[in-house]
């Protein structure tokens, strides 16, 4: 067991990469971001002070993320900025985040702080703060139901080939592609948007001869939304116009959607 600790140290150490660039060290750290980058820092010495900086990368897009100009993101950046006691410098049209010290013994501490600051901000920007939790929950629920009740392979929440159209579940068979959409929403507007988007996406791919079946499974658990006049009208239309290729099911009738799969196996 004692070798495990040696493995930990060795493998974590292997994540450091350093290059000398003029009077600056370019250091790739083991701190990772959720968009698959490792945080890079730049270390230099000016007037006997060690400077540790992001090199302007955070705001210049080097991490493939733009900091949205929304108050909530500014608050997130501000939160980490305060936590790690960062400093900011605008020069040559760039914004640098940095920390400085004349105490050599604090240099690694600064590297730790700045790397965590950059990593935290970049990862936070990847969060979709405006996503509809009701939609996410319903989709997870539906995916779980398919995974546990149908022993068949599905691609969930994927784009169909390179059409730009995403579907809740895609199953590819020799006889053709079967598509499912799971429609929900935390409020009437969100529900209506998801319902119409689903209908539109199915209408677009309906022309493809390799798509054999398209089924919409709608969340009918919220009577307030489900009883909305537009939602009712739209669902009545979808139900009345369904055919062998286009189907619509309430979540309560999800078992029927599964029987649809076995019926065309």
């Amino acid at each position, binding site marked *: 067991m004692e070798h495990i600790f040696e493995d930990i140290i*060795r*493998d*974590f150490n*292997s*994540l450091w*990469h350093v*290059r*000398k*660039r*003029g*009077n*600056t060290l*370019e250091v*790739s750290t*083991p701190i*990772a*971001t*959720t*968009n*698959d*980058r*490792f945080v*890079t820092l*730049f270390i*230099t010495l*000016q007037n006997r*002070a060690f*400077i540790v*900086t992001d*090199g302007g*990368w955070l705001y*210049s*897009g*080097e*991490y493939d993320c733009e900091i949205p100009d929304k108050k909530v993101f500014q608050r997130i950046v501000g939160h980490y900025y305060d936590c790690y006691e960062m400093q900011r*410098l605008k*020069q*040559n*049209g*760039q914004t*640098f985040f*940095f920390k*400085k010290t004349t105490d050599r013994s604090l240099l690694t501490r600064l590297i730790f702080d700045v790397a965590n600051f950059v990593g935290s901000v970049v990862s936070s920007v*990847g969060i979709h703060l405006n996503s509809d939790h009701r939609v996410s929950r319903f989709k997870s629920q539906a995916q779980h139901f398919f995974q546990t009740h149908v022993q068949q392979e599905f691609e969930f929440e994927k*784009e169909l*080939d*390179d059409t*730009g159209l995403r579907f809740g579940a895609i199953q590819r068979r020799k006889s053709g592609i079967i598509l499912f959409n799971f429609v929900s929403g935390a409020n009437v507007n969100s529900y209506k948007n998801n319902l119409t988007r689903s209908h539109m996406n199915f209408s677009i791919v309906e022309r493809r001869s390799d798509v054999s079946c398209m089924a919409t499974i709608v969340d009918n658990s919220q009577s307030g939304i489900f009883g909305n006049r537009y939602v009712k009208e739209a669902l009545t239309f979808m139900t009345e116009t369904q055919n062998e290729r286009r189907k619509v099911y309430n979540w309560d009738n999800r078992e029927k959607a599964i029987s649809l799969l076995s019926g065309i196996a």
Partner: protein
Amino acid sequence: MKKIKLHTDHIEGYYCFLKAPKSIASPIRVSEVKGNHKKSLYKEAPISCDASFGNNCFGCEVRRSDVYNYSFQFLTDQLKHRVLFRLDEGNGTHKNHLPNVPLSQLSIPTPHIHHFDNDGNWIAYRPGALASISEPLHINDGFACFCQEGVLSSPDGTMPTLKVQEDGAFPLEVISSDDPLEGIIF
């Protein structure tokens, strides 16, 4: 974050494209300011290839007028991701998003190349020509490596020439510096 993946149906055609000779008109002049990154110079130019993957072109980006901070890539209109193959220098270490890979192999510093592996995963790797490099790679050497790994040449079979210069500005060699913090006073 959405994982970039090439559908298995496309992998054979993809590798045919990568291995096939490609040609491009030379010299390639990189002189346009990039729309979303005003500090980058950018250029896309058509390439011809007998095993094309959609409509293909070559792309070059030079960031911050720095000869040690650039990317070369092959692009297609057939994928939403567009990028088929890319050499990066100076824009940070990539973390390969792969399961069952030891920690020590996740981190791929620049210079590195991105491509789709045999399973369609978009990964970074360092080919033999780049594996032992510990110093920043000058853009001319990076371009030579890209041409070699991506099988790109001029129509006459020689290596294409790259000219990086913003319209009306001094040539890049004059305004660039090896030190990314030169002139910045903290």
